[in-house]
């Protein structure tokens, strides 16, 4: 492949997982270039890569990877900022000036003397970006920088990257699957497929180009493509609204969900805090999830979503209030089997092969040796991970890890599955797959409760959504009503359809509303 990037450009790299995006980025940064056979030439700043001095290669090219935690190398924020400049051998005074300036630019002043362990995920990634910027690079390589962040933190990081590009003229190469904000601001869209560049176009043309795969498009362009629009595709909410404005539409229709008699899990007036002197995480919270339904709990950071899941799972006990499972008081004893899929599924893996891990569950569920092996194979088959059984869990992709973890939990025959941020950091394809899996769980009669930031997924897969704020449920409704009722905290599709297609909250809603005419 060949391509070149001009100074000051913002280039968005997209492609399915395994298309070689990360490898491409890492090859540009000599220090971390992957092992293997290489051909061809990489030229940086008009010179061959080999001519670049070690010092320049470190300072001129900045690299931020997706792992938020593992990139931190020191225990305090200011030391983290100073790390790169210390490597370059700058004098102390110069380093102090640089880290002060960078901290100010990124709004890290208040965190300056904090321990890195006390930062939130978003703050950590911002720090990773800032500490690369201390070396004053002219090229910034970003490898899925928002993959482990929630949407709000991701937006903040992306706006910082845009500022660096616009204000400081830094060349940015970013590979990212959260494209709604970046797509319209990029100078060029580079699409990779199986190690080749298939598209190299400015965003407006790229949005309507067939070579750009569907998942890499912003929501606006996805709707345009699904409706078979022709000409220049809309790439922002406003453009899509004007595209839809002249269409004749019918209001979106959401069938009433069937009511089931008993809630599988119900929480009544629960209060929870971690320690006596802490604040209440949950206060006077009441919530219920019907048997065999999918319920999504939405809310900002620290709203208590994960804590609520832990209480239902029996990991934490409320200091006041009741937890009913299958209609029975469960604070002391669990009447129904609950399992919790953590945010990072790898926390569930204990052994060096997926098979052994699944077998552990099968044994815990009381299967004998042969029955256990059969059960493992059956569950793996159902989830489509038979081919992965003898791999190391850490060698799997994020989506595969999630499936393997889910298989491990399903072998325990749970009645209620609690999923913590199941679509966090996933690309379009894996998200689709997760939504399909959740639907399959529902079809099996399992009760699913999801804590998520992802409004799009919640709108697509749930029967009911609840908004958690300040420790209690503010509103709870079927997704159609839920997301039309909220003006800001809603799906991008609802933003597009507001006032044009009443009640539309998913792209299916919009497409159906237009097609029915």
């Amino acid at each position, binding site marked *: 492949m060949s391509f070149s990037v001009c100074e000051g450009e913002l280039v968005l790299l997209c492609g399915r997982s395994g298309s070689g995006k990360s490898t491409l980025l890492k090859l540009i*940064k000599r*220090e*971390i270039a992957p092992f293997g056979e290489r051909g061809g030439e990489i030229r940086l700043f008009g010179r061959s890569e080999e001519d670049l001095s*070690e*010092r320049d290669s*470190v300072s001129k090219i*900045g*690299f931020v*990877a997706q*792992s938020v*935690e*593992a*990139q*931190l*190398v*020191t*225990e*305090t924020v*200011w*030391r983290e900022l*100073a*790390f*790169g400049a*210390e*490597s*370059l*051998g700058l004098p*102390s005074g110069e*380093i*102090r000036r640089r*880290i002060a300036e960078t901290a100010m630019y990124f709004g890290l002043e208040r965190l300056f*003397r904090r*321990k890195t*362990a006390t930062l939130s995920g978003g703050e950590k990634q911002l720090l990773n970006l800032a*500490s*690369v910027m201390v*070396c004053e690079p002219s090229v910034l390589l970003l490898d899925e920088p928002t993959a482990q962040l929630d949407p709000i933190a991701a937006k903040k990081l992306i706006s910082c990257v845009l500022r660096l590009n616009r204000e400081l003229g830094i060349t940015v190469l970013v590979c990212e699957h959260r494209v709604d904000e970046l797509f319209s601001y990029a100078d060029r869209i580079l699409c990779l497929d199986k190690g080749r560049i298939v598209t190299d176009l400015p965003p407006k043309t790229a949005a309507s180009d067939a070579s750009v795969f569907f998942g890499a498009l912003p929501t606006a362009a996805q709707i345009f493509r699904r409706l078979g629009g022709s000409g220049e595709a809309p790439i922002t909410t406003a453009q899509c609204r004007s595209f839809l404005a002249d269409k004749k539409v019918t209001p979106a229709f959401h069938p009433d969900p069937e009511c089931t008699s008993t809630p599988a899990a119900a929480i009544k007036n629960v209060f929870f805090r971690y320690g006596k002197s802490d604040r209440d995480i949950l206060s006077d919270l009441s919530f219920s999830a019907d048997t065999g339904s999918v319920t999504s709990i939405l809310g900002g950071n620290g709203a208590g979503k994960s804590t609520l899941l*832990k209480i239902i*799972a*029996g*990991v934490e006990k409320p200091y006041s209030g009741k937890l009913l499972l299958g209609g029975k008081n469960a604070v002391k004893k669990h009447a129904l089997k*609950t*399992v*919790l*899929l*953590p945010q990072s599924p*790898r*926390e*569930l*893996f*204990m*052994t*060096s092969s997926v098979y052994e891990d699944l077998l*552990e*569950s099968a044994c*815990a569920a009381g299967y004998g040796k042969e029955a256990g092996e059969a059960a493992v194979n059956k569950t793996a088959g159902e989830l489509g991970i038979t081919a992965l059984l003898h791999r190391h869990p*850490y060698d799997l992709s994020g989506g595969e890890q999630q499936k393997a973890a889910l298989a*491990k*939990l399903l072998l325990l025959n749970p009645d209620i599955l*609690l999923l913590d941020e199941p679509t966090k950091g996933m690309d379009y394809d894996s998200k689709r797959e997760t939504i399909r899996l959740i639907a399959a769980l529902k079809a099996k009669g399992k009760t699913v409760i999801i804590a998520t930031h992802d409004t799009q997924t919640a709108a697509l897969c749930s029967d009911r959504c609840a908004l958690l704020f300040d420790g209690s449920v503010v509103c709870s409704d079927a997704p159609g009503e839920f997301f039309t009722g909220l003006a800001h905290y809603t799906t991008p599709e609802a933003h597009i359809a507001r006032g044009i297609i009443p009640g539309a909250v998913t792209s299916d809603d919009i497409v159906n509303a237009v097609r029915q005419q």
Partner: protein
Amino acid sequence: MSNESAFSRLHPLTLSLWFFFVLTVTVMTVNPILAALSLLFSALYKALTTGISIKGISVSLAFMLLIALLNPLFSHHGVTVLFFLNDLPVTLESLLFGGMMSLVVMSSVLWCGALALCMTSDKVIWLFGKPFPKLAVLISLTLRLLPAIKTSYGRMKDARTAAGLYDDSSPFARISSSLRIFSALVTMILEDSIDTADSMKARGLMLRGRTSCSIFRFRPADFAVLALVLLSAAAAAYSSVSKAVLFTFYPAVSYGSMGAVTALTYGSFALTAVVPSFMEVTLWKQLHSTTYRSNTPQARNSRSTV
């Protein structure tokens, strides 16, 4: 920072020399006056910073009594025999030596507590940074990993508890459950370490001529404390060589006469040892709140309104 003591605001160099001097004198001395001074000021500092409780005092006193009473059982030197135990003499000198040692042990423990409070990891890394830049990186990274390991362990345990895979029905089951999680934790940390290594390489760890940045400043107070430390160290060294503060327990208790040098040694040591407490009391005086640990909104408001 809410729980910062006034003394810890000094430069790491000052702090380390101060602690080195005071701890050396405390650990080495056989002079009961120096030991008593050391205990007095270390206890005062503890009371001013973390506070002391009745329970803490009684436990410490019992500990000290034990040290004092146990010594005559092992050491039978001394001329003043109090009584015989199993045909072995129990002497007054040995009892007194035990009492002196109890002062030494207790004040060392208290000063070490103060050391932990004042020499934060930031300052330790500063000390290592100049002579051992690579080691400083190693320590800093280890300190970064520690809390991450702790939270990961908690999350793994939660996930397994939720799934009913964490067995803590018996001590044996608990150990084997913990071991299982610990082993998985090792996998996670080792796999993640590759990303960390990349991040370090990308930011030039392997370049030659690494420097060490410091955000600490050497202020007039540092000069003052440092001068005091040097003066008392000189006095202590001189009187130790000239045997001006000589104090012997065996065979009989004997000590030199109180001269100018002796007075200077005691005085300068006392002055040095009182510095942390003095700073703690005077620095926050203007803020009308000596309990620096209180970080309640009320306390913060009252500080800002003064």
